[in-house]
Every structure is written in C-alpha cells, then in structure tokens.
C-alpha cells in the first residue's frame, strides 16, 4: 500500500508569457519503508516536487495524497499539524535555528507538538546519541561542522517519529565523507526504523543508497530505476543515466 502518491501533479510559476511549468502532470507512488531518490538536471522541478509533497507549497493542478488524505483540502493549521506529526524535513541550507542548541533544535517538532520540555529533550538526545552527537548536545549550530549540523537536522526530522522523511539535497553542502554518512543514515532510517524517505539529489553516488530512483526532466517523470542490490556499480549506472538525460 502506498504511503504517499500524486495524481497529475502540476505546478506553474507566474502567469502569461513568463509562466514556468515546474511540474507537468507528475504521478508517482511511494510505498511505506521505501527509500526513493529523485534525480534530474538543475531546474527540472525536483525541489518543487518535494515542497508539494510536504505541503509547503500548493499545486496548480492535480493532487498529493498522504495516508488517504488530499493535501489540497487541508487548512493551514491542519497542514502544519500534518508536517509536525507525519513528515520530517531535511534541507540543503539553513537547516537549524541559530540561537538554539543542537538538542533544542532536534526537539523542536515535538516541543511544538506540546510534549513536555524535559521529555522532548530526552527523546531528542537519544536520537542525537544514535548519530554520535552525544557530546555536542549543548552546542549551537555555529559551533558544529556542516556534517554535524546536517545530522542534527536528520535527528530533528526523526524525533517526532514521522512516517515520511523529505530531504532536499541533504548532502549538497557536504564533503564526500559527510555526504556518505548522511546518505547511509537515511538508508538506516528506512531499514532499521521503517520510515519512508524521499530524497532529492543530483549526485549519483548518493542516489545509489536508495532503493528506487525517479528521474525528472522539464517537470516530467521520464524514467524510473529500481536498484536491486548494493553491488558498487549502481553509482556508475546512475551517472550514465544522468549523462543520457543530458545533465
């Protein structure tokens, strides 16, 4: 059964002559526990798709359905609640609130959901320890490396135990090693904790961690690849595919 699916999802920015069709009748399905990567050349609509999936932006046509509910029918407050409880986000930049410590940042979604501060702190700390940040609980973001910041962001995305994690270029800002760390962390999230992850990336090596790849071009889904097993050649395979598309 699919956790999330879209039907003819379309997003048009602007109007008249300057209108840009960022997404063009996109219909995809993602199952529970699946790790999906979205790839495609720059400007093909990857971020736009992710924003629509997470209810951060509204579509021009078509719909997004999560757990049987269409997002278009929801009010702002309900959408907010949905994001808080069912979806975790990880972005490329600007991920953390600069004035809050690592543990405070990580606990934000559940604090916002009304969990008692002490309890929220405990749960956030548990996640951070799992990601080897037990020593840096009380550091502010500017005292953490980029990779560490991103791990805090992943912890934050997971702390509310959401069914779905949406990540937009989570490794785009990191060096190779930190990028690998984050990607395997996300894989672990699907395998060990049974969450669903949809990750946007244009790095074939990072995409290789996923179970399935969706290729976008000019706002349309043009291809899908299921990666059978981790054999070390997937990255090369994907790189070839990308070249084919014309990146």
């Amino acid at each position, binding site marked *: 059964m699919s956790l999330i699916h879209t039907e003819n999802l379309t997003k048009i920015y602007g109007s008249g002559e300057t209108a840009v069709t960022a997404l063009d009748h996109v219909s995809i399905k993602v199952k529970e526990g699946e790790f999906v990567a979205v790839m495609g050349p720059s400007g093909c609509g990857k971020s736009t798709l992710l*924003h629509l999936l997470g209810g951060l932006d509204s579509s021009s046509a078509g719909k997004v359905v999560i757990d049987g509910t269409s997002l278009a029918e929801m009010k702002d407050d309900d959408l907010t609640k949905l994001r808080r409880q069912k979806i975790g986000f990880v972005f490329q930049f600007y991920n953390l609130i*600069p004035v809050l410590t690592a543990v405070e940042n990580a606990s934000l979604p559940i604090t916002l959901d009304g969990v008692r501060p002490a309890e929220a702190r405990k749960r956030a700390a548990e996640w951070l320890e799992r990601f080897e940040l037990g020593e840096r609980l009380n550091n502010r973001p500017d005292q953490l490396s980029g990779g560490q910041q991103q791990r805090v962001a992943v912890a934050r995305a997971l702390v509310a135990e959401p069914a779905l994690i949406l990540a937009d270029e989570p490794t785009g800002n990191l060096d190779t090693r930190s990028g690998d760390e984050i990607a395997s962390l996300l894989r672990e999230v699907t395998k060990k904790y049974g969450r669903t992850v949809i990750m946007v990336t244009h790095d074939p090596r990072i995409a290789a961690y996923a179970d399935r790849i969706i290729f976008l071009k000019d706002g349309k889904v043009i291809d899908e690849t299921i990666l059978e097993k981790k054999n070390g050649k997937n990255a090369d395979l994907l790189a070839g595919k990308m070249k084919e598309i014309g990146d």
Partner: protein
Amino acid sequence: MKLQLTLAWRYLKGRKLRSFLTTLAVVFGVLIIFGMNIILPTMLAAFNANMLAAAGAVDATISHQTGGSFPPEVADGLADIDGVRAITISLNRVVNLPTDFVDDNPAITDRISAVTLIGIDPETARSLRIYQIQEGGRFLEPGDTAVTVISQSLADAYRVGLGDRIALPSVSGVVDLTVVGILPTRTVPGNEEVLVTLPQAQTMTGQEGQITAIDIALDTTDETERAAILAEIESAAGDSYTIGSLQPGSEMFASLQMGQIAMNMFGVLALFMGGFIIFNTFRTVVAERRRDIGMLRAIGANRRTITAIVLIEGLLQGVIGSGIGLVLGYWMGAGIVRLAEAPMNIFLNIRMGNPVVSPTLIATSLLLGVGVTVLAGLIPAQNAARVTPMDALRPTVAEMETRHRMGAGAIAGIVMIAVAIMALLTGETSFIALGSLLFLIGLILVAPLLLHPIAYAFGKLTALLYARQGIGDLAHGNLTRQPSRVVITASATMIGLAIVVALGGMTSSLSDMLNSTVRSSLGSDYLLIPPSISVWSGDMGSGPELTERLQAIDGVGDISTLRFAVTAINGQSISLIGINPETYPRVSGLDFLEGDETAYEALAEGRAMIVNGSFTIALAGLEVGDTVELATPGGDQTYTIVAVGSDLLNAKVVTAYISQANLAADFNRTDDVFIQFNLLPGVELESVDSQIKEVAANYPQFTVLAGRGYIDQMLELVKVLFLGMYFLLAFLALPSLIAMVNTLAISVIERTREIGMLRAVGATRKQVRRMVVAEALLLAAVGTAFGILAGMYLGYVIVKAMGVMFPISYMFPLGGILGGIAIGLIFGALAAIIPARQAARLQVVEALRYE
C-alpha cells in the same frame, strides 16, 4: 509557551546591542511619565500633611470655597446648632518675608521665610485650643493693639524676649508688635504663627471686617453623631463654604498641574518614539529571520506560535524596559522632589515627605510601556506569521510581499496626512494636537511611497559614481533590489530628525515669545516685587498709601499695580488679578490672543474679565462673550469674558483679570501685591531713585528694582529655563537618534554577505568601505531632507497649538535645521563607518558564510 520564551530570550541575547538600544527607547518613555507623575502627588501630600498638622484640635474648619476672605456674619447661628460646643472666627494670612528680614544677617541662611499671621478672638479662641503661655507672659486680650503672642522658636529666630518687639510687613508699612506672651517651641510642620487680635490682623492685611476661617469644636466623639452635626453646619453655612482644611495650596497646585500636563505630553511623545523604534526593529528582525521562521513553519510551528514568538520578544523588552524605566523614573522623580525641597521650604514653608507612588501610577506606567511595545510588535508579528515555509527555502519572495502591503499602508498614510492638514486649518487645538499625531503616523506609512523613487534614483547615482571602479552595477542593485531596507533606514532617519527639528522650532519660538513678553510685561522703569512672584496668595501687599506716596514724588508717571484674590467657577479655582484698566496698559500690558486693547475699557465699565490661555484650557467651552458666575464672599457674581490675553507672570496659572474696583467691591481686596511704574519723560533715574527707595523702605515686603535690571535678571532666568528645555529635547531626541544609527548600522550588517561577494569579485577594502559609507550617507541625506520638512510642519503645528495659551508665533528654526542636517549626516556616517570597517576587514569566505 516555554519554547516561545526561550526563543525570544535567545534572540534578544543574540543581538545584545540592538536589544539594549530598543529597550532603551521604552525606558525613556516610562521614565519620563513615571518620574514626572511622582512629583505632583508628593507635593500634594506635603501640602496635606502640613494642613493636617495645622488643623490641630479643631473638629471642623469652615472656609470659603475659594480660600478667600468672607464676612464674619457667616458664623452667626452656627453656635446654636445642637452638638456644637464652641466656635471661633479668625483671619489667617501667610506672609512671605523678604530675605534676611528676621535675622537681618545675610551670612545666615534664612530659616524663617514666611509666617502665618493669625487674627483671633481672644475670648472664644481659648475655648477651642489650649495656649500654654510661658511664665511671665499673658495671652491676648480683646482690645489689644500692636501686641502679639509667638512661639519660643520664633522668638529665638527674631532674637527677642517678652516685652521686645518684632517687625512684620503690612499693607500700611512695617508694623512693630510687642511680644506679650510666648508659647512653647513649635514642633509641628508648617509656618510659624504670629497671633494677634482679629482687628489688628484685619488692619495689617487691609481686610477690614473680613475673616477667613470659622473653627468649630463639637461636644461628642461619636462618629455618626458628628457626621450629622457637620452636615447640619454645612447646610447652615451655605454652598459657597466648605468644611475641612483650608486650601491655600490650590494656586500652586494649578500651576504644578500645567507643568505635569506638559511633561506628560513629553512622555507620551517619547513613548511614541519608542513604539516606532520597536516597530522598526521588529520589522528588521522579522526580515532578518525569514529563514528561521520559514524553517519553524516547515517543521510544524503554526502561525499562532510564530506570532507569539515575536510578541513575547516585544513583551520581554516591554517588561524589562518598563521595569528599568520605573526604577530610573523613581530616581528622577525623587531627585526632582529633593531639588524642589529647598524652594518649597522657602516659598511655601512646606516640608517635603518621601516621594508618593500610587499603585495606579505604577500600573499605568507599566501598562503604557508594555502596551506600546506589544502594540508596536503587533504588525511585524502578524507579518512574521505570514511567512511561509517556502520563504525558508527561497531568498527573494519576501520583498514582493512587503511591496504589496505597503500600498494599503501608503493610502492610509495619505489619508492621515490629509486629515492632519485639515485639522490644522480648523484652528481647534484639540484637533490640531490629534492631527499632529496622525501626521507622524501618516508620515511613517507614506515614507515608503516617497522613498521608492528616490531609492531608485540613488541606485542610479551610486552606479554612476562607482561605474569606473567596476562595481557600480552591484551598488546600484543593492539599493533597488532591497527597497524595504532602504525605506526603513531612511524613514527612521526622517522621523528622528523630524522630532529634533520640530522641538527645535518649538523651543526657538517659545524663547522668542518669552523674550518679548518679558519686555512687554516687565518693561516699566521701576518694579516693586514681592518675595514670591508666582504664588501671590502668600504675599503681603501694600495699602493705597504706598502708591499715593510714590505718585507724589516729582517725576513719577503712571503707576500700575496688580492685586490678587482667589475665586472659583463651578469648583475650578481661579486666580483673579485686579488691574487698573487705565494705567496698566500704559505701564505694562497683556498680549492678546483674542480681542484687543478695547477690552480694558470693558473692565472699567462693568463686571467684565479678560482670561488667560490656561483659563481657556481649564474651562474649555467658555468663549469670549460668555458670562460666568464667579464665587465671591458675598455670593456669586456674573462676569462677562471680554477677551483672552496673558502677561508673563500669570501665564501658567488659570487666571482672570478684572478691574481693581470690582476686586474691591466683590472680593474685599485692595492691597497691591506687585507695583510697577514709569518715570515722566526726560526724568533721570538718579534724580528720583533715592526718594523712591526711601518711600519703599517702610514696605520691606517689596524689593525695588529699576526695570532694566530686572529684565536682564528675568532673561537670564529664561536662558536657564531653556537650557533645561534643550536638555529635555536632547533626552527626547536621543532615542530617535539611536533608532537612526540602529537601522543604518543594521542595514550595513545585513549586507555582510554581499560585501563578501564584492570582495570576492575583486573590490579592494577601500572600495568596499567607500561604497558602504557613501550609500549610508546618501540614505541619511534623503532621510534628513524629509525629516527637516516634516519637522518644520510638526513644529509649526505644535507652536500653533501652544498659541492657544501664549501669544506665540512660529520662528523659522534655522539653527535647528542646520543642526538637523549636521546630526543627520554625522550620525549617518557614524552608523556606516564602524560596520563598513568591519565589513571591509572581513575575510571573504567568512562574509560569504554569514547568514
């Protein structure tokens, strides 16, 4: 809630300097309002404490509602009321004494600067009070003349004993009184008392056949019975009389009240500035934190939470700022009370107690301080809630939105300014005052509209200036791409300077007015001035004999005097100044706000009065041509208001001028408390000076001054006064200037990233610095230009509004404008240089990482 608090607190702490500066704005407002409102109640409490002490063993005192004198017949029949044990009548009069009158020694600071002369009925007085006459002396007896009973302490001050004589000024010159009895040392606060027989006091004060108080003792201590008896007494005495303590402070009180109103206006203006600063800061704050807010929204914070974060931040600043404001305000209030202690003691013989702080005042001050902060944060908080999660992910959305929102604001602003200008045209004070507030708000709203095209032109200009250096296009882009930043910065400068220039215009007009009024009010050749020239009721005047003798001197021309009484209209107490309608305009003269010199003729012809500006404010609704009922000792009398005008000495107290003939007929007052006269043309000062001094010598209550000298003295005083005003102005302008520097600095800091970019593409440090400073200066210049224009309008409005009270006309504040330009540019440069240096020094990589 905990989370919101944590976030608010951390953000505040994160920008310490800015938080400090914004909070300072609240502190100033609360400080002024709180501090100033401590002063009046403290003085009142001091009055009451002294009054209570003076009331002594007496159960009730009946006095005329005006505090003035009345015929003794009022007491008739009161003694027959059931439950009244005894009554006695008396004439009380505070007598201000000239410097060194008692001790005759300039080296010693005067301890006694005023006494209360009390004329009593020796027979009945003793049935109410116990007078413990010391060994060897006696009490007063009916028929005594020129004898007195005083306390040991007063006798010590005069250095006299039984049988010696003490001197007191009276309306007919100095009177020597033989001390026949001495009472124990005075221990209660208030003036030392000089007891004489009633007729003696009436002669000395020129109030023949008049009394000022009826003291009553009851023969029961049961509260309910006493209340019933007092009610009966009150109805027997009639409407014009009040039971309770005398109110000699009412005149002083009225003048204090005017001051308090003015100070409150300052406070409200300061708070308004504070509100604007906070509004401005929060706008910047919200713009700065768009990403944070968007991120919070993305991970599940709803709109209410976002609004709450900003509002709580405002609340925190409001509470902290108001708290500090309360403490500092208390210090200031207490400090001023301490400073006022000496003059209060000397002029009114009142000892000040601890500063009086009512819980209501604390509550109001807090409410105002916190309320303004939260209110100012409201719109930015709502804007913050409108930030979408997408704003965290896209950098350019924000500006589109603000520009859209400015449209509605600008229209509202234009409407407000139009209304303000219409209000100005009506000429109604209250409208004008309201209008100026609208004008300020309107200006803030319209500023974006006015500044948009300028920002664009600016961009072009900088582009031209720096075109050669290859970074012109970037600089151009900076200004046009972030119009909201440009607008905020320039409008902060504009408002800041508008207030400086407006206040500058106000003070220069006021000082000009005072200078000319001093000359017209006090421009006579000679002045005889009493110890207190603002609180007449304590001044012992002189009888007709003095002016007659002065007139008899060869070479003395017109003589004009002021006489004084107190009256009331519907309970509002009013100072009455009696003038001679014939000589007054020739020697001195009023500045007319409505009507003209012909009003003097009306005063001479019947019950007519000229009222001053304070009067028209205190009794709003009364106009020239209206008739009013004045409370007099003989019942109400109908007077017609024939003009509005004011002299210097009485401008701040609610005052009406009537003819001396009417003052004598209706208020039984014929003593002159202030005398001025001219010499005949061609007469040399030297030839008459000694004769004048000789005549006046018997009236030590007056200081004789040749007019010019006094004017110089007064002008000196005016200068000191204005020094104080300028200090206040600086006080008020400070927060605006802080706001200006604040926004200018923030606008540079905000661009750290761009500056890094410039450096990355090859701009030298010097180029960066020069570009940033030039840009800030240009911004400051626009703000300054608009600020000066707006300030001139505001100043004009304020002066117009004051014109209701004083004969004042708008002075073009050239100095203020030059000062404004200097301040605008200096502060503009200052605000840019420091961050610009920092920016230039930044490592390129660091700057690029700055978020």
